[in-house]
């Protein structure tokens, strides 16, 4: 048993313990389990929302992307900020409507707003499809952490299975309460570790941030700015826009909105949360530091940059501490994602098929589904093949398709009809699926102007989505009007 492993195991056990402790003495009915009885104040909502940002994606994906791609990683800084600006306006109406109508999930929201259970089912399906890559990247991260920090003593496959089992067990017992407590512990630790690494590594290897960037610019000119083609300015803007709009479309992020105590709390958070994005800088510094220190990692291996550099720089015991932090970053969001997926299937798919099902049956089913969903995710994780960032962007391309019909439904008079909403969502998702499955890349369509080739596929799909939504809504609106007039 080497020096790093005990810390990793301790982290996992601590997370489990916190989960069990937080749930003791609380009666876990469906509402408690998913939205914590709606009593959370500003600080807890902040921690929960912020906790979701700091996932394996930030820790490993962010540093890996900076290491492997350079400037394109900056999109990660920009999109959260814009999402929070949007949240100031978009979230309070959602919260209010959910409270008035006692809603549990994002899917419920669509069912109510559009008076369409079928739309709710569609939304739930899109959510579940989008959540899988998101969960996969958490498990992938766990595999990397345990693999590298364990100095190869645990195989990545076994690590993934262990991680999935812990997350699943943890979720089945505690729900949102558990997540909030562990999130507080996790955020404290990751903040400390990331700030330390982000400053120590550049200073240790280069003598400072300025010298580091100068050295990189010298060795790899243009690495720290956006390229003319591929991940270019157009890619950047379209990706930032896609992910800013999609930020709250994730069902678990949507679910977190419901836990706020008031609309004012939500608006207050919009001021402070952008600042939290700055923590991402430190993770980029690590990635950049690694570029010249541990070169040679390519393709999906770029996600190993932070750990490879840590192994080169620090003693095993400290690598273990970093590994423990990493484990927590995967467990907390992983648990929230898993819980959300299970609840979606139980509450929005099963209950749609069996309306007679009561809360107790549904919550029991949700708990039973947790290991099932985990298994599906493990299967895809073991198949491999994508970087952490690529996986998340794939999820975003799907989930952002919910944005047009959601935002239109917040207006006093909803322009979109339920048919328009459904058609738009299906069109958007189909576009993404067609492009992803066929492997067609806009870059292979050389007749397209270069800027368009660089656009993020999700944004293109969103445009298709919106156009279809408008066309179908106009058509169905006209069809409904004569019928209404005749009835009068």
């Amino acid at each position, binding site marked *: 048993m080497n020096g790093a492993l005990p810390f990793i195991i301790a982290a996992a056990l601590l997370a489990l313990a916190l989960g069990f402790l937080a749930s003791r003495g609380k009666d876990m009915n469906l509402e408690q389990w998913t939205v914590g009885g709606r009593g959370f104040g500003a600080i807890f909502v902040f921690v929960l929302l912020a906790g979701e940002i700091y996932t394996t994606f930030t820790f490993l994906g962010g540093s890996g992307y900076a290491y492997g791609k350079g*400037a394109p990683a*900056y999109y990660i*800084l*920009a999109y959260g*900020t*814009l999402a*929070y*600006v949007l949240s*100031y*306006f978009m979230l*309070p109406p959602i919260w209010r409507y959910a409270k008035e109508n006692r809603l549990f999930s994002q899917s419920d929201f669509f069912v109510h707003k559009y008076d369409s259970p079928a739309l709710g089912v569609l939304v739930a399906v899109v959510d579940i499809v989008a959540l899988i890559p998101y969960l996969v990247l958490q498990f992938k991260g766990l595999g990397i952490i345990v693999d590298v920090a364990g100095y190869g003593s645990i195989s990545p496959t076994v690590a993934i299975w262990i991680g999935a089992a812990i997350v699943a067990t943890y979720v089945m017992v505690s729900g949102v309460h558990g997540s909030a407590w562990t999130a507080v512990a996790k955020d404290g630790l990751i903040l400390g570790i990331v700030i330390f690494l982000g400053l120590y590594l550049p200073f240790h290897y280069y003598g*400072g*941030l*300025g010298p580091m*960037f*100068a050295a990189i*610019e010298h060795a790899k000119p*243009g690495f*720290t*700015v*956006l390229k003319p083609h591929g991940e270019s*300015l157009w890619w*950047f*803007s379209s990706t*930032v*826009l896609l992910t800013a709009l999609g930020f709250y479309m994730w069902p678990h992020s949507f679910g977190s909105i419901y836990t706020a105590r*008031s*609309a*004012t709390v939500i*608006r*207050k958070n*919009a*001021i*402070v949360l*952008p*600042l939290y*994005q*700055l923590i991402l*800088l430190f993770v*980029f510094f690590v990635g950049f530091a690694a570029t010249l220190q541990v070169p040679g990692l390519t393709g999906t291996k770029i996600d190993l940059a932070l750990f490879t550099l840590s192994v080169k720089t620090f003693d095993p015991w400290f690598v273990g501490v970093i590994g423990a932090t990493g484990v927590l970053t995967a467990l907390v969001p992983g648990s929230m994602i898993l819980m959300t997926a299970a609840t979606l299937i139980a509450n929005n798919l099963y209950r749609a098929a069996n309306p007679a099902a009561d809360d107790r049956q549904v919550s029991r089913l949700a708990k039973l589904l947790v290991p099932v969903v985990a298994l599906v995710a493990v299967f895809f994780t073991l198949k491999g093949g994508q970087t952490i960032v690529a996986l998340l962007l794939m999820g975003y391309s799907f989930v952002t398709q919910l944005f047009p019909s959601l935002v239109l439904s917040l207006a006093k008079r909803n322009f979109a009809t339920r048919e328009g909403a459904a058609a738009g969502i299906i069109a958007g998702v189909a576009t993404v699926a067609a492009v992803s499955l066929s492997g067609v890349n806009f870059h292979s369509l050389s007749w397209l102007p270069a800027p368009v080739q660089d656009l993020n596929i999700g944004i293109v799909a969103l445009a298709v989505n919106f156009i279809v939504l408008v066309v179908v809504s106009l058509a169905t609106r006209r069809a409904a009007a004569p019928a209404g007039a005749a009835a009068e």
Partner: protein
Amino acid sequence: MRSIRWLAVVPFLALLVGPFFVNRATPVLGLPLLLAWIVIWILLTSLIMAVIYVADPANREGEP
């Protein structure tokens, strides 16, 4: 006054359009200009949101 909310468009312009004009590596506070631009705008966005919050009548009434 509610129209203060339009200030919120500024961060969008700064972060989606701005980069087209500052895509350079020139060091600013040790960081490449493009990165420094984004960082500065994150700080400014927070400030803008604070201004909007304080000026927004919705936050003053005892609105739940």
